[in-house]
């Protein structure tokens, strides 16, 4: 393993992961709407077409259900497709192929079928893109057995996890927060940087409160932790990185140490990621908890367009800090 590092963006991490895996394994190919010549609407796959050509970097028709089906079929028969669904909101159109086919084929066939399909899609509000282009619907997939669900928060994790996803023999979906594509971070040099699927990461160590945060919420949690440190509250930030299978040990260990937990995710608050993780903690760390587990998620409203409304629907640093404060009040 190489030890030196380079700074790249979240978006560049996508491109590097795909191109390295495509060089390594000729059965890997990439397809989606406007991903080739145009390099994708977020431009994160720019350059792949020039290197690999139109066979392996493939522009598709606007047919989300169809391209997902094509991905499943190609994966079943010896290829390793990477399928891009431009906005996570459009996954609504492709759900059958992922949920009823890809996720179940190995099980339903008694282990015969392999579906080494990687799905890349986006989450995240904050661009005034309104209700149909701003949802973070990853909880849906985490609810479904048979598909692995990744939700990286840094360029290094994204690159290493996307590469692991492509090499995995199971269907894997990776959610990229579109607001983070220009976020920079250090990534190990070389094409052997892999981050294991199913392993959480402690993004900051602390002793008083555990914040379990996903994707862009990790950045928020880290800056809230800086602020809270000045008040003398030491925050540990745990990034699950994989929602399914979930690394419950790392989360529980942290909470058993700190005795307080907050869970933050940008999906809708109700019936989503935070409920799962909070109830896990509340159950398995019951005797350790000094305060109820708090949850922060997107407000349960369709994402509004107006810049006067949209920001208030997403968790922010102030909300995290006040949630932490409330945990001390609650028991005081």
């Amino acid at each position, binding site marked *: 393993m190489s030890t030196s590092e380079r700074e790249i963006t979240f978006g560049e991490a996508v491109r590097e992961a795909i191109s390295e895996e495509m060089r390594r394994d000729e059965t890997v190919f990439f397809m989606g709407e*406007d991903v080739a010549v145009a390099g994708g609407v977020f431009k994160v796959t720019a350059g792949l077409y020039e290197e690999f050509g139109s066979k392996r970097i493939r522009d598709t028709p606007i*047919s989300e259900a169809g391209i997902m089906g094509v991905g499943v079929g190609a994966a079943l028969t010896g290829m390793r497709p990477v399928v891009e669904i431009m906005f996570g909101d459009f996954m609504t159109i492709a759900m059958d192929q992922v949920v009823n086919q890809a996720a179940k084929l190995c099980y339903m066939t008694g282990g015969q079928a392999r579906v080494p399909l990687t799905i890349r899609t986006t989450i995240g509000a904050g*661009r005034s893109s309104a209700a*149909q282009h701003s949802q973070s619907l990853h909880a849906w997939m985490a609810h479904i057995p048979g598909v692995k669900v990744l939700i990286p928060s840094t360029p290094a994790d994204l690159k290493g996890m996307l590469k692991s996803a492509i090499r995995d023999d199971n269907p894997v979906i990776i959610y990229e927060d579109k607001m983070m594509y220009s976020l920079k971070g250090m990534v190990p040099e070389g094409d052997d940087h892999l981050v294991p699927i199913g392993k959480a990461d402690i993004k900051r160590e602390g002793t008083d409160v555990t914040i379990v945060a996903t994707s862009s919420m990790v950045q928020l949690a880290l800056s809230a932790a800086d602020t809270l440190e000045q008040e003398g509250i030491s925050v540990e930030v745990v990034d699950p990185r994989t929602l399914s299978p979930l690394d419950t040990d790392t989360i529980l260990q942290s909470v058993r140490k700190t005795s307080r937990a907050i869970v933050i995710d940008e999906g809708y608050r109700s019936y989503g990621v935070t409920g799962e993780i909070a109830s896990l903690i509340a159950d398995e760390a019951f005797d350790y908890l000094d305060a109820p587990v708090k949850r922060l998620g997107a407000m349960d409203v*369709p994402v509004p*367009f*107006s810049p006067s*409304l949209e920001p208030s629907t997403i968790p922010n640093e102030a909300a995290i800090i006040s949630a932490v404060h409330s945990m001390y009040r609650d028991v005081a």
Partner: protein
Amino acid sequence: MSDDIEIVQPSSDDSELTHPREFCAEMYRKMVTIRRFEEAVLEIYQQGLMPGLAHPYIGQEASAVGVCTALRDDDYITSTHRGHGHLIAKGGQVDRMMAEMMGKEAGYNRGKGGTMHIADMSLGILGANGIVGGGMGMATGAGLSAQMRETDQVAVCFFGDGAANQGSFLEAANMASIWSLPVIFLCENNLYGEYTSHRDVTAIKEHIAERAAGYNMPAIVVDGMDVVAVYETTSRMVENARAGNGPCFIETKTYRYRGHHVGDGNPEKTYRTQEETDLWKTRDPITRLARRMVKGGMATEEEVSEIDQSIQSAVEHAVEFAKQAPFPEKGEVTEHVYV
């Protein structure tokens, strides 16, 4: 396949306008309003006054205006991400549209929808739509509703060449046809879906309209840069639908002069050629109609530029109105989740 398609012969630019003066002037006004509105949108985007992105309709005006001129106020349309033209043509007010684009409370949707979701239920505008192909079923449902309520309303489903590859088209076309619903599938073929040529992703011989035959409905191809031809074609099919004869498919051949969205600055440097754009601009629907009106003695050059002026100032006023308008109150964020 093309045997089954009616190709409307382009009307010569020299041929006389057979419609009344005021009628032609109104179509002209609508087209110019769309053009100026979209130019203003590009401007406010540059100025950072419009949050998000928008998809300009410039170049395609004849399609929206020709179609909607054939409709009544109580007819329905479903629109797309590139919806401003459809909305203005169906009667949408530019000030409330502009306010919506800026996220203001005076906007059609109280600022909660923005460019891709503008709707005016009172005008039968069931909404722009951010989901490509998302309006197919909805328009069909509006047609079913009209049929069940025994009105003679018609529903027009606008969609692009790209959307023709969504499965939702098959399902909607099939249902509209088996139930003889008053639905017009109006495919605006502007040659591209985002940055991809329709030729590369659309399996057809020549026209997207070829797909209609598989659903046993009439299919027509018409010059989408000729507002009169679009109007006449649509009118005929609207009559047909009102009479209970079921759905049809109309493909308007058109072109967007600008990029896919306001931030797609120079398509000619990437996915299309300058020659192509220049060629289409020679068929400009606004210039053509103006020329014919003047030639036919319906209006003088001065009268035409008076119209242009008055629209220019109406759009300016709309921008001013939108700028001044307040944002929705913070508390509104939780309203309208349910009725």
